[in-house]
């Protein structure tokens, strides 16, 4: 099995990335968007694109059994974006607490490589703290080191 993640495309603004998830549920287009909140702060939104309705699928549970590849590709998109725009902070919060936890697990499992490239902070009770391994956070903030 190819473990590197999916190849993806990005739009001209370089704030939107897209790739195709392949699995038992078929081929599903995924989109990652970085939207400016204010100044150097950007928010990451991620989900499935519904080709027939031409809009994002708010259900957002494709069950395509490729979570690892999808997460790897989202990480690659974050690294690509932050490397290009090194002064920008990315706010990452899952659609549900379990999704945020999944992203945190990716960070923990790849701690050395990710923290070599990204400065991370975690949100606890509306306070941003230096990100520590294996701790629970409500959201994550990332910037290229």
């Amino acid at each position, binding site marked *: 099995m190819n473990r590197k*993640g999916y190849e993806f495309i*990005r739009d001209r603004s370089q704030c*939107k990335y897209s790739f195709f998830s392949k699995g038992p549920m078929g081929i599903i287009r995924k989109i990652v968007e970085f*939207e400016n909140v204010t100044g150097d702060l950007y*928010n990451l939104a991620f989900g499935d694109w519904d080709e027939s309705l031409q809009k*994002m699928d708010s259900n957002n549970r494709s069950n395509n059994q490729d979570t690892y590849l999808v997460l790897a590709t989202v990480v690659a998109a974050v690294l690509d974006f932050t490397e290009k725009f090194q002064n920008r*902070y990315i706010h990452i919060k899952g659609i549900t607490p379990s999704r945020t936890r999944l992203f945190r697990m*990716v960070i923990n499992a790849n701690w050395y490589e990710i923290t070599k490239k990204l400065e991370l902070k975690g949100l606890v009770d509306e306070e941003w703290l230096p990100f520590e391994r294996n701790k629970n956070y409500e959201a994550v903030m990332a910037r290229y080191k």
Partner: protein
Amino acid sequence: MKKLNWKKLRKIKFVVVDDFPDVSNDPFFQKKHQEAKDFFERTGIPDFIKNTGKSKEQQ
């Protein structure tokens, strides 16, 4: 959670295209972004973002 293959991850191709799905006004993404904007409007922008002191943006 299995470790990512970083050597292979670096080889993921990034292709710039013109025919990208129009998600600029998509309700789902708008909701997610608005939630973040509301959060930072309520709690304020953290000082470490206001004072990044970093200016090496590569366009």
